[in-house]
């Protein structure tokens, strides 16, 4: 990891440790106040616990122009970003995609192209509905590795993270604690429950927390929809398309709508928030990731809406193409944050149960 970023985070953490006014805002500060000397592993863990709510920045009496020049959200964002690049496997991919919106866009276009190519080359082999455009077995051949590879890669990254942060063997209660925190996005609630300072400087608002929840639960609903569809296909011999009053649709449509609304709000908030309280170099990559999620969700909804029209094959290519770029990029884009966040929350639960 980059020494200068760690050194700056260490300098700031030492000042915070002598002050402690922000103790109630989030999980970062109780963890920080337990240390006296900050190892690289401590700082990596603190950085991944930080949800960039910015409460500590606006409350801080030592921000610029004060000579101590504190900007903890930024210092931790930079270390966090760097840790994701360091732990990624294969490493160079994260180095390219984390920061570059352009490369994410290129990957998405490549995804479209691959799908169009597959439609041409592989075709339907006699299927119906979507499978009239591309056969089910061809879809599985393309998407199964695209889904499994990132999981394998993330697994390696999390192992590296766990080693770096001196993680202990995981108990169910640690995992439960972490999921409860993530489910409520507790670390964006500001300690007092009024929300975070992402939207409008020192005004507390729930905007980012709610938008994030919409995307997260929307994504989980869509994921559940696909999983249910897969089970129905294989176990019940009920291939797609599914009608409106079916489980895949009842999960997928609200999920898609939540994702569309959430990503639009997140992108809007991100445009207006102070870039200098995050990792400015990663802004483009983060924004492109939000837009890619938006595209996945919107194209999925449109595919449902236009499923019986001539536009269907094009929409199918756009939807599957964006999914095809989204999944393999998971370990190397902002999407990885969910996994690291959970790992950090599990690690923090271990710290709390020890204390």
């Amino acid at each position, binding site marked *: 990891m980059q020494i200068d970023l760690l050194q700056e985070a260490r300098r700031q953490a030492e000042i915070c440790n002598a002050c402690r006014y922000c103790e109630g*805002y989030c999980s970062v500060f*109780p963890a920080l106040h337990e240390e006296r000397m900050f190892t690289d592993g401590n700082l990596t863990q603190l950085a991944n616990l930080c949800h960039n709510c910015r*409460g500590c920045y606006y409350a801080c009496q030592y921000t610029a*122009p004060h000579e101590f020049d504190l900007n903890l959200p930024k210092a931790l964002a930079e270390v966090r970003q760097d840790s994701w690049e360091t732990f990624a496997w294969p490493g160079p991919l994260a180095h390219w995609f984390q920061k570059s919106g352009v490369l994410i866009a290129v990957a998405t276009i490549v995804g479209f192209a691959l799908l169009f190519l597959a439609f041409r080359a592989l075709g339907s082999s006699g299927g119906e509905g979507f499978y009239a455009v591309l056969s089910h077995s061809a879809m599985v051949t393309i998407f199964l590795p695209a889904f499994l590879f990132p999981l394998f890669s993330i697994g390696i990254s999390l192992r590296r993270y766990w080693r770096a942060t001196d993680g202990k063997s995981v108990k169910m209660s640690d995992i439960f604690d972490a999921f409860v925190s993530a489910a409520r996005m507790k670390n964006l609630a500001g300690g007092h429950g009024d929300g975070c300072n992402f939207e409008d400087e020192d005004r507390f608002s729930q905007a980012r927390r709610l938008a994030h929840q919409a995307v997260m639960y929307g994504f989980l609903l869509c994921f559940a929809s696909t999983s249910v569809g897969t089970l129905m296909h294989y176990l019940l011999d009920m291939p797609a398309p599914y009608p409106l009053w079916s489980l895949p649709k009842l999960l997928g449509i609200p999920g898609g709508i939540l994702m569309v609304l959430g990503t639009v709000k997140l992108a809007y908030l991100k445009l207006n928030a102070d870039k200098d309280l995050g990792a400015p170099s990663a802004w483009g990559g983060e924004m492109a990731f939000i837009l890619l999620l938006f595209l996945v969700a919107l194209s999925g909804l449109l595919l449902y809406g236009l499923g019986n029209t001539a536009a269907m094959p094009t929409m199918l290519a756009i939807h599957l193409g964006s999914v095809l770029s989204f999944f393999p990029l998971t370990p190397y884009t902002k999407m990885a944050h969910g996994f690291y966040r959970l790992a950090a929350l599990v690690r923090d639960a271990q710290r709390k149960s020890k204390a």
Partner: protein
Amino acid sequence: MTITCDIAVIGGGNAALCAAITAAEKGAKVVILETAPKAYRGGNSRHTRNFRCMHAGPLDPLVDDYSEEEYFEDLLKVTAGKTDEKLARLAIRTSEECLPWMQEHGVRFQPSLSGTLSLARTNAFFMGGGKSLVNAYYRTAEKLGVTAFYEANVIHLELDGDAVRHIDYTHEGEAKRLAPKAVIVASGGFQADIDWLTRAWGPAAQNFLIRGTPYNRGVVLADLLEQDVQSVGDPTQCHAVAIDGRAPKYDGGIVTRLDCVPFSIVVNKDAERFYDEGEDVWPKRYAIWGRLVANQPDQVGYVIIDAKSLNLFMPSVFPPIKADTLEELADKMGLPAEKLRNTVESFNAACGDTSDFHPTELDGVATSGLTPPKTNWARPITEPPFYGYSLRTGVTFTYLGLKVDESAQCSTANGPIRNLWAAGETMAGSILGQGYLAGFGMAIGTVFGRIAGREAANYAN
């Protein structure tokens, strides 16, 4: 541009904001004249962390209860009786209703901070500290139609008989004049004016550090005192503590405090000890060390500890100076090496049985036959590496201020000034003759800020 308003509040910290909000809620058109730029608004309030609050029964976030009598006794102990009982009891009694009022106006509290559990019953901690309180109050004030001008430097209040006629100030490089119906002064003490401190203290004050805002220069206070507005307090009295000598001249705030004195020996620049470092637990002693250090040559002290004491106290912002021998440490700190060795050796020789050593309570582990003695936590300094910190006097705020009555109103020898009120540190000397009680400054500011706002609004309406 001429501004019209009912009430001008001079100052932009806690007391000023409580006054402005209260007056605006009563329908008055209020203007805040804050001398600091926006980034540094809030005076010393931005460095504060809690509010000392009387309460009968648990009052979120405070536990148990804290009665008027106990609160008042705590005040008597630190001020050695130098207080105005009527005003002090008014502040104490009213503090209880202030806490919910603060919450209604945007302030959020958090449980007592790690390292301050002893205050969980008496002091309510602001979530995020004083700057977040200040931010919340500015948001609330803005919603109520209060206008805040930053970098608005008030130079003069024209006092004519029993009323203030107008205020002269500069803003954005232009001289301006404002003639409000009523004026509230909440612009703090004069501690950032080192020349004034020097006149009061003598040349020693040149070496003092100012823990808080550099903007409390006492301009308005001096202007009013010149016009014979009644004052209270002694210009040499202030809240002063011993802080890290490497702290910035201004605005170092909380992180520059050092809690290691009880586990150390403290010497002056001649490497001589001068006071019992183990007299009492640190929260009860840190405020006297500001004055002790101020009385030493060059107003500097040096804390010496060894390896076994390094982790017994809260970390501070600057790492200690570290050396493998006492001579090397003396060298790095600019102390006479041989003298320091002699001082440490005679201290070590005076230490006795240390098996009862207990860092968080008075353990009676004392020296014998040493002057001055160390009466608790006396363990020989023998285990390298050795660590040192320099100590200087850090002034929080001065106590010389405006004398007010129970309605926060100012007066001259001829009686009350009809349209002038004062709140916060600028009148706290009425209650704090000497000494200090943690969180009491914010209590005085909130209580008297609200009184001043109410009275001024009643007058202006």
